[in-house]
């Protein structure tokens, strides 16, 4: 008999007023008992609509059935067939738009907590199963991967399991991409990411940090001089955008990337860190996505008294994960939606002292189908802040494009591929993740990696014959 409780088993979490002062993980994870109980809420639907909502089509009822039976290792093996990073995706996927968005239990009550169960299974496995993966027999072929974010790591893992000798080149001093420098510790502990990276090394993957491809080596050199038969470009989303309003160069204006990089990658949140970061009193974060939520919650944890999210559309339009918005509200972040900054104001020393905003209302839907915000006449007001963090999205980094002749990009600078397998305009050069789609999600970046790994394997095998 399934558990017919209309509500999800609640996630044990740190108290909002405790956690908004530390960087430890917010959600503590299910116990075995909670997981089994939640798993029993799944109706094991024959047509399993949840699966079609997952970009990598994890056999959701399949793994949940094993959880309900208490066989967590079997559950892990089901997930591992489709996903390389379940501990990450279970934590950061926008489940409400994906798997859980399609779950039939959502019609009357709350959906099955698919993400929470996935996280539980992955954490259980990491803590309880210590068999090291063995590197398979080498097949004699070499593939290079550029960028050690979720997309690059997925390609590396999948190809290594097939016997390829894979080298991942990463520009920064650690592997993990956004998982290391963007998403904060309190949402995704860094040792989970490093555990995944260590797993790849055990499979025989070489990870070379401090290597900016396009500068120290070009793609042509990798293929011609280093003997790589294929290259996968997963260099991520790139440079932050600014609004172009007056005052954006004042001291105290950050891009979210800089703020988060200082806090996460360079560990400015630790007492003994050498990385400087502003001790802010009042912070406005402009934008409404995950990046904005992360920056706002970091600012709060670093001691800011007032933290505002300033977003030009309404609460319903916030692109961030629902859970992050809820967590942010609980932690005392103030949402100023339907508000748009028009100018950053500086004091006599050139530091931010506030910003002028206008109120917005929603008009007709625009090209994206969302209702377009328009300025409300005479609604100007000043918000007093000493720090402003711009979280407005990014535009692709030009390094690889400009140093690889014949590699086509669209007018935004995103690499062009011939469809899901990720082949670019250059033979044997594949690409995927944010470098192709623009800023998207971890699971999509990983999914692109899976497809590309299959395509690269097929292309190399075809050449062999």
């Amino acid at each position, binding site marked *: 008999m399934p558990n017919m409780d209309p509500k999800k088993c609640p996630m044990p979490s740190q108290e909002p007023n405790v956690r908004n002062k530390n960087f430890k993980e917010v959600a503590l994870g299910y116990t075995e008992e909670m997981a089994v109980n939640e798993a029993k809420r799944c109706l094991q639907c024959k047509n399993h609509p949840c699966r079609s909502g997952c970009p990598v089509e994890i056999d959701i009822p399949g793994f949940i059935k094993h959880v309900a039976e208490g066989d967590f290792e079997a559950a892990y093996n089901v997930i591992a067939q489709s996903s390389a990073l379940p501990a990450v995706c279970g934590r950061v996927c926008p489940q409400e738009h994906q798997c859980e968005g399609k779950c039939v239990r959502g019609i009357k009550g709350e959906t099955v907590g698919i993400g929470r169960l996935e996280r539980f299974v992955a954490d259980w496995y990491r803590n309880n199963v210590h068999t090291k993966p063995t590197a398979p027999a080498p097949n004699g072929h070499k593939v290079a991967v550029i960028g050690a974010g979720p997309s690059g790591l997925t390609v590396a893992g999948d190809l290594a399991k097939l016997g390829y000798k894979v080298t991942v080149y990463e520009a920064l001093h650690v592997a993990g991409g956004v998982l290391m420098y963007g998403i904060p510790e309190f949402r995704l502990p860094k040792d989970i990411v490093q555990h995944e990276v260590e797993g790849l090394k055990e499979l025989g993957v070489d990870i070379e940090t401090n290597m*900016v491809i396009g*500068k120290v080596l070009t793609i042509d050199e990798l293929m011609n001089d280093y003997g790589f038969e294929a290259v996968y470009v997963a260099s991520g989303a790139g440079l932050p955008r600014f609004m172009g309003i007056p005052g954006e160069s004042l001291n105290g204006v950050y891009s979210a990337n800089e703020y988060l990089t200082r806090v996460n990658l360079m560990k400015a949140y630790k007492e003994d*860190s050498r990385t400087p970061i502003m001790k802010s009193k009042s912070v406005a974060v402009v934008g409404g996505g995950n990046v904005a939520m992360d920056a706002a919650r970091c600012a709060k944890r670093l001691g800011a008294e007032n933290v505002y999210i300033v977003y030009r559309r309404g609460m319903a339009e916030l692109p961030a994960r629902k859970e992050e918005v809820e967590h942010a509200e609980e932690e005392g972040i103030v949402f100023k939606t339907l508000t748009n900054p028009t100018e950053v104001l500086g004091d006599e020393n050139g530091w931010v002292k506030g910003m002028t905003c206008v109120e917005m209302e929603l008009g007709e839907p625009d090209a994206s189908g969302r209702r377009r915000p328009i300025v409300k006449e005479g609604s100007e007001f000043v918000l007093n802040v000493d720090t402003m963090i711009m979280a407005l999205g990014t535009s692709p980094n030009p390094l690889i494009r400009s140093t690889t002749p014949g590699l086509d990009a669209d007018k935004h600078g995103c690499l062009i591929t011939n469809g899901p397998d990720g082949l670019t305009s250059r033979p044997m050069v594949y690409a995927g993740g944010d470098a192709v789609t623009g800023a998207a999600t971890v699971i999509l970046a990983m999914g692109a990696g899976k497809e590309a790994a299959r395509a690269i394997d097929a292309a190399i095998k075809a050449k062999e014959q």
Partner: protein
Amino acid sequence: MFTIIKRRELNPTVTELCIHAPLIAKKAKAGQFIIVRAKEDSERIPLTIAGFDREAGTVSIIFQVVGAGTMQLNSLKEGEAVHDFVGPLGKATEIEGLKNVCVVGGGVGCAIALPIAQALHEQGTKVTGIVGFRNKDLVILEDEFRACCDEFIIMTDDGSYGEKGVVTAPLEKKIVEGANFDEVITIGPLIMMKFVVKTTKPHNVKTVVSMNPIMVDGTGMCGGCRLTVGGQTKFACVDGPDFDGFEVDFDEAMHRGTMYKPFEAHAREAECNLLKQEVQ
């Protein structure tokens, strides 16, 4: 392993390290920079490539000890290694086709100016070098400059060496006398570069400046190194570090450079106290 092959103290606060980094040595060009982390917990520090030896596979950096990061770097000995060393970053200085160039360096900026002067000299450009220091004790790289400059002028603020005064005085004089430079390339403190541009602009002599804003990643990800050039936002680590001096908003750049001053002063104190304890 990025081993320190050689270490040389150029003056009491400026050190040169020659580091084993064959891949970077192979690609490096004058005007580019690297990012170094001395130890596992150090900050990422951008430093210009002061020289390279493609055959020996080494890259030299010359840095002034100004804060915690450079202090840590300065504590490393020959035979030890820096934890991270990444590059070559940024665009190389454009020198092709130049016939007659004045290179103006100030303080530790001379370390950055030197490889450019050398590259110009090697391609047969006439090089006039003008360098400025606060006083005699701080003069660095004099012999190296003399070897690659057709004409070379040293200025000191207090007149304790070379001529007394600032670099813009001889620069102005040369231009007025009809030196006919194709270009002036200047590297040093922002305030100096600002005044070099003030000197050259009325005479309409093209002036390239090398900007050194605060950086984090140096790869075009964080946006921390942004500058306003010709009214547009530019990122020094991927669009620069060289820019057209007439277009750069120096006042803004100077102001942004002070963002972490209070934090740094504090770090420096903490570090000094540590040093004291070690001595006791």
